[in-house]
């Protein structure tokens, strides 16, 4: 790899933990390479990429947002590098005794808003399971949804497995059988104006390679 190169990655906020770790490993393997991230909402990042924001790689949390960048010609041929799945989380002591989607009715629970990637997934899961319980709130993003449980403001919430994993022991995680079929993809693409397309390509390979697999799995992602 080149000396003193910088790899600039625009990545969905839900990738913060995993990508930061991967960045450290990548730097260790690539002497003189500096990996820098700009985390944000997928929509923001895709629009910024379309607008010509500096960066070599764009990683978004769903297809629709990546489509914004694709449509603008900023990226081509995005690849799915991970998927995520919905789970229920409750505070550690699960005060409302939630065991499944059916228990949500009558509790103060939250999920993502329909417009957010995580909301689309949540709604699909709920529809598939035939749940009609009304949430207290439709949260702006996955992290805010998790936060409501972490802070004790909600008895339960529907979040990504990755969010549950990041919360560790602070929450109780309950798998949703119906969710398996509503996995949502994370996409990665090299930006057309990448300063160093080779390095960007190496990052894609790294993320899809063994290191990536290890770190992403650890963070709760699944392979596509």
């Amino acid at each position, binding site marked *: 790899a080149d000396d003193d190169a910088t790899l600039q990655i625009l990545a969905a906020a839900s990738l913060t933990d995993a990508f930061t770790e991967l960045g450290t490993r990548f730097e260790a393997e690539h002497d003189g390479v500096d990996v820098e991230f700009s985390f944000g*909402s997928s929509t923001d990042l895709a629009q910024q990429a379309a607008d010509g924001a500096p960066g070599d790689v764009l990683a978004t949390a769903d297809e629709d947002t990546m489509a914004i960048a694709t449509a603008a010609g900023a990226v081509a041929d995005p690849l799915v590098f991970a998927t995520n799945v919905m789970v229920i989380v409750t505070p550690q002591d699960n005060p409302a005794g939630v065991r499944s989607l059916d228990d949500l009715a009558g509790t103060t629970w939250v999920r993502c808003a329909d417009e957010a990637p995580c909301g689309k997934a949540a709604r699909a899961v709920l529809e598939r399971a035939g749940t009609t319980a009304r949430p*207290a709130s*439709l*949260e702006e*993003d996955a992290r805010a949804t998790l936060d409501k449980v972490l802070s*004790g403001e909600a008895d339960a919430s529907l979040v990504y497995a990755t969010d549950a994993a990041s919360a560790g022991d602070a929450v109780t995680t309950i798998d949703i059988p119906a969710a398996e079929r509503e996995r949502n993809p994370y996409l990665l693409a090299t930006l057309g104006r990448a300063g160093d397309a080779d390095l960007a390509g190496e990052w894609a390979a790294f993320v899809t390679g063994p290191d990536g697999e290890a770190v992403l799995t650890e963070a709760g992602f699944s392979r596509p």
Partner: protein
Amino acid sequence: MTGPAADGGSRRRPRDPLGRAPLVLLIPAVLAVLLLVTPLVTMVAATDPASLVAALRSEAVRDALWLSIVTSTAAIVICLVLGLPLAWVLARVDFRGRRLVRSLVIVPMVLPPVVAGIALRTAFGRSGLLGEPLLGLTGFAFPYTTWGVVLAHVFVALPFVVISMEGGLRAAGPVYDAAAATLGASRRLTFRRVTVPLAMPGIAAALVLGWARSLGEFGATITFNGNYPGITQTMPTLIYVERQADTDAVLALSLVMLAVSVGVLVALRDRWLVTA
């Protein structure tokens, strides 16, 4: 009474006796206006008319707009009720620790709105220091309710209102307070009949600042109250959520908000903002 000449019927704007405004002030003033107005104009230009029509037809938009207006107005009323007395105390009462109180009042302005929401949660959330006992005693909790939205708006707007009002009250000279006192007016009556009317331009400006701040508020609201249509979904929240799905709609929604707020601001007659 018997004047030398009748006042001409023409109400022409008289030439300013002090002469023209100096360019050294006019030029930056024009730049400032351009800086503030250009983005608004380009935003309007970038908006797809079709999505504007769609936005106006949408029930979700109407609900959110209504909720925004209701909660901002409620918040500003509370800011008036709580903030005006606090501004008065800061302006008129010479107590130990006044400087500290003033600094503490300013601090919430510095908080990024999301952090303001988190701070509110630690105090008034369902498991917050005050919120938990409140929930236990009354079964009521602020989060996920319209009251919670109002609380978040008040928390965010109050510092602006207080600091800005204090300036207005200080300008309404204490010499008139003294005159009112000699006429037998209690401090309370003086406040109501003398201080407040004299400071009205400043108070009104402060309320406009607060109302505008509260109307645009979103981070604290969504963090503390979440987002549910009809209950906690204000216009900014709707816009934020909508943005993840449909960027065009965002501009249309923003325009609707702009139109409403300009309408309100223009409707508040000039003298309500600042009197000459």
